């Protein structure tokens, strides 16, 4: 193996061990010693790649939240109506958080470190930007209620996402998806134009039905 590839493998091994430990005991209780032990590495190897526990957390936040943001962007690139993309994108992100360990740990670290870590504080505003882009298009496509500010609509959706994440029992994907769906059901009449409402209620119901399998795969 080329030295560069080997170094990358080492780095990823350390990250995976950190993802496991942060996920199990939380950021505060996780010790670098245990991460080194789990990764089967030396202290030198760890410090070669990460100069602190926070550097580890930053890398995990960046990798994990890129996964979810990329997934949302992929959905947004589709030629479907923007409000469909927005709803579908929110579920795709939730699915990733439920099923992907790296994405889930990144969310947990983001919530815990948002006030202290610049990578973490960037996450929610990036997400808000991505949703707002779709909300603007949805507004131009006539699917949002007239006079609504797309930015405020996006904030409410982001609030629903974050709330569902905070309140759901750890690793219970069904609970998470249920909470998100209930919030969106309540939000729809407030944000969707009268004539589109029936269609989007059906769209949301179908979206919800599609997800139990994906969210149960964590068990």
């Amino acid at each position, binding site marked *: 193996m080329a030295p560069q590839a080997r170094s990358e493998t080492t780095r990823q091994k350390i990250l995976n061990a950190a993802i496991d430990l942060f996920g199990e005991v939380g950021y505060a209780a996780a010790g670098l010693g245990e991460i080194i032990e789990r990764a089967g590495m030396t202290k030198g190897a760890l410090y070669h790649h990460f100069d602190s526990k926070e550097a580890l957390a930053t890398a995990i936040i960046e990798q994990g939240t890129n996964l979810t943001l990329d997934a949302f962007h*992929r959905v947004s690139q589709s*030629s*479907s109506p923007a409000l469909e993309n927005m709803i579908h994108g929110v579920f795709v992100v939730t699915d990733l958080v439920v099923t992907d360990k790296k994405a889930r740990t990144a969310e947990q670290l983001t919530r815990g470190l948002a006030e202290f870590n610049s990578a973490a504080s960037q996450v929610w505003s990036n997400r808000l930007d991505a949703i707002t882009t779709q909300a603007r*298009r949805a507004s*131009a*496509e*006539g699917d949002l209620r007239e006079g609504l500010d797309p930015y405020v609509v996006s904030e409410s959706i982001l609030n629903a996402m974050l709330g569902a994440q905070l309140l759901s029992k750890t690793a219970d994907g069904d609970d998470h998806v249920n909470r998100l769906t209930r919030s969106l059901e309540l939000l729809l009449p407030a944000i969707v*134009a009268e*004539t589109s409402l029936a269609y989007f209620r059906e769209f949301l119901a179908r979206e919800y039905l599609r997800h139990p399998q994906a969210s149960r795969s964590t068990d």
Partner: protein
Amino acid sequence: MVMTDTSERHAADTSERRADTTRQRLIAAASHQFARRSYSMVSLDDILAAAELTKGAMYFHFPSKQALALAIVDDLNEMSRAAVAELLTRRMSGLETLIDLVYLQAVQNTQNEVARAGVRLLETVDNTTDLSTTTWQTWIEFVTSLIQKAVTEGDVADHIDPEDVAKMLVALWVGMRRISDLDRPEHYLDNLQKAWMLALPSFANPDRIDYFTQFIKRRHALAVIKVSDEPHPRDLNAAASARADP
């Protein structure tokens, strides 16, 4: 030593790039011709004149007009494969995926010259190769799998043979493209939407027809925006309700 190595690699890169551009120019010029005229009416001289290339340059890439035509069909199939792969990552239901695919292809077939030439060639190259038979068969199999999925999802009635529905839909899609003037993309999209609205009740579950009627109208409205030069998105509600009666 290092210098020679790099400069040789550089030279190889450049000539590879040049070969790529030549191939692309030939495909583009040929697509422009094949998209508008029948295969037999297109002469190699026209293609070479438009591409500003010599016969020698062409023979390096394609030994004949037929080879050029087959390469265009291959490019089209590659584009379709990529579009399908991309759509499947969205993990929508079977029938939603199918309708999305139909509209993606409809826009592509009017806006992209290689695609437009490719679908036309597919209908004419079948005398000498089995390429078009294979292509249609692949489409029918893929659409069948989507309809089967739609049956398990409750969108398509379960007393109908999915393969029968697939054959009808592929025929409808190919036929509508054939009888429409692709230079008038809005007209083509209109024909396509009407045909789908007529076909939908023959295989969709009655309680899903309203939803899919809306689903199709929304995609139709967006496709119309794509093929026209309208700078601003159009009101999807207005577009959907304006054509309340299919």
